[in-house]
C-alpha cells in the first residue's frame, strides 16, 4: 500500500472527542461522521481535507473513548493514513481492525509541517517528505498485526478461520 498526500498537522493528546464529538454519536453512518471529523479542533477540516491527505500528530493520538467512530470518521473523510509519535491503545487496535493505516515515527512528525507532501509506503514503513526532501522510517508494525491486515482485517480473518456459526 502506497499513499501520497498533503499533511494536516495536529498536536499532542488529540482525544476521540476531538476526532468525532460525542454529540454526533447517535449515528454510525460513515458519511455523516466524516462531516464532523476534527470539528472541535479545526471546524474547517472536514470541508478542506482531500482524499489521500495524511494526518500527522504528536504523541498519544486517539486517547479517550473506545469509539470506532473515530477511525471511521477519519477514513470516511478521505484521509489515507495517520502518522503520530504514538497512539492510544484502543485507537491503535481499532485502526487495524477496521483498516485505517497508521504509523509511528518521531522523525517524520518532527520534520513534517502543515501542507508538506508525504509519500508513504505501508509495507516497508518508508516515509518520504517530498516537500523537504527527507526520508524517514516508521517503527515496524508487529508481524501479527501485518498478518491481520493481510487477512483483510479482524472479521475477515475470523471468517477464514471457519468459526462463524
Amino acid at each position: 500500500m502506497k499513499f501520497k498526500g498533503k499533511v494536516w498537522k495536529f498536536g499532542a493528546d488529540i482525544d476521540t472527542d476531538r476526532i468525532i464529538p460525542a454529540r454526533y454519536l447517535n449515528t454510525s453512518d460513515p458519511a455523516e461522521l466524516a462531516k464532523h471529523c476534527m470539528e472541535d479542533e479545526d471546524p474547517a477540516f472536514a470541508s478542506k481535507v482531500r482524499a489521500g491527505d495524511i494526518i500527522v500528530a504528536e504523541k498519544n493520538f486517539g486517547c479517550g473513548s473506545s469509539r470506532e467512530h473515530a477511525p471511521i470518521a477519519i477514513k470516511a473523510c478521505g484521509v489515507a493514513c495517520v502518522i503520530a509519535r504514538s497512539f492510544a491503545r484502543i485507537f491503535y487496535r481499532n485502526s487495524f481492525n477496521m483498516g485505517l493505516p497508521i504509523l509511528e515515527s518521531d522523525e517524520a512528525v518532527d520534520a513534517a509541517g502543515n501542507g508538506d507532501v508525504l509519500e508513504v509506503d505501508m509495507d516497508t514503513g518508508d516515509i518520504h517528505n517530498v516537500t523537504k526532501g527527507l526520508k524517514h522510517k516508521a517503527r515496524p508494525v508487529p508481524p501479527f498485526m501485518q498478518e491481520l491486515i493481510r487477512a483483510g482485517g479482524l472479521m475477515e480473518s475470523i471468517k477464514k478461520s471457519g468459526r462463524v456459526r
Partner: protein
Amino acid sequence: MRRMTITEKILAAHAGVKEVVPGDLINARVDIALGNDITAPIAIHEFKKAGATRVYNRNRVVLVPDHFTPNKDIKSANQCKILKEFAIEHKLTHYYEGGEVGVEHALLPEKGVVAPGDLVIGADSHTCTYGALGAFATGVGSTDLAAVMITGELWFKVPESMKFVFKGKLRKWVSGKDLILHIIGDIGVDGALYKAMEFTGKPIESLSMDSRMAMCNMAIEAGAKSGIIAPDKITKAYVDKRAERPYKFYSSDPNAAYSDVIEYDCSKIEPKVACPHLPENIKNVSEIKNIPIDQVVIGSCTNGRIEDLAVAARVLKGKTVAKHVRLIVIPATPHIYNEAMKKGYFGIFLKAGAVISPPTCGPCLGGHMGILAAGERAVATTNRNFIGRMGDVKSEVYLANPAVAAASAVKGRIAHPDEVVRS
C-alpha cells in the same frame, strides 16, 4: 516457574497456558463481552456482515443502552432499537432497558455479571472499572466486540504491569477518585500507555468497593490497558451476595516483575481537581481560588454510586445550591436510585435545589440532560474534561470527587468541602 503479576495470571489462565510474559500475543477466552448504545450497533452490523447467526454464549454477551437513554432523539432511539432486536433474537440474558438500565460499569458489578478472576472486554473504554473486583477488564472497539460475540475469544498483547503502592492514612474528604487523579497528575495521560496498573498498599486494602471502582475506572485516563486491585475481604463481601458464576481470586507473586513501582504517601494527598482540558492538569482544591461555576454534575460510572451520593448528601444537608448554579445528581443505577431514596438523600438534594436525573450517562459525554453553553463551566464527578466533552467547545469541565462537587454547588465556585461542612 516464572513469578507473575495478577494480570499475567488471569491472562495465562484464559489463554490455557501455564505462563505468559509481557509482549506475548495470546488468544484468550472471554468471560463477558459488553456493548452499549453507541458501540453495539457497529458490532451487530459486523456480526451480521460476517454471516453469523449465533452468539457464542447468550449469557455472556451483555448489551446496555445507557448513553443516550431514555432515548434522546430519533437517531438514538433507532440505535437502541438495534440492540433490543438483537437481544430478543439471540435471547440475551443480560439486556437492560427502561427502569432496569443503569450506567453499564456500575450496573454489571452490582448485578454480579462480572466477577473476580474474569476476563472481560467491553466496547467502552471504561470497561477497566471491573479491575476493582480483581478481574482483567479492558476496553476495545466495536469490531473486537463483534469478533468475541462470534467466537468467545480475542487476541491480546500481554501488558507490562506498573505497581502503585500507597502508604499512610487517607486524609479527610479524600476518596479513590483523588488517588487516581493524583496518579494521573503525576504520570500524565499516557503515563501508563499499553500497561496494566496495579494498585496496592494498606490504604487500598481498606478502601471501599465504590472507591476502588472509581480508581480502576480512570486507569484509561492514564492510557492504561487495565487497572486492577487484588481481591480481598472487601471484594468477597461485595461479590458473595452478587456473583452469578463461580469466581476465582488471583494475586501477584511476591517479586513479580513490574516496569515501574511508584510509591505515594496518602497523608500528603488532598482532594484534587483536574482542570480543563486534560485529566492530567491536577491541582489541589485548596490551590484553586475563585473559579465561578454554572453547573455541577454528580454521577457517571466513576462517581455515581451510593457512597458518592452519601458523601454529597453529607455536604448538602441543610444547605442550598448557590443562585444560578444547576446541580444535577444522577444515581448510576436503578438500585442506587432506590437506595438513595430510602436513605433520605433525595430529600436533601431536592431541598438544596438539585435536579435528580434517571440513571444515564447523559451529560458525562455531552449526550443530553445537562449540556453546557459556550463559556459555561462545570464541576463534574465524571472522568473526562476534554474540549467540548460536556457541550460547547468553549465550555469547561473540572473533574473532582463528589464532596468537592457538592461543596462547589453550594458556594457557586470551586470549593473545598471544609468550607461548607463545619465539623
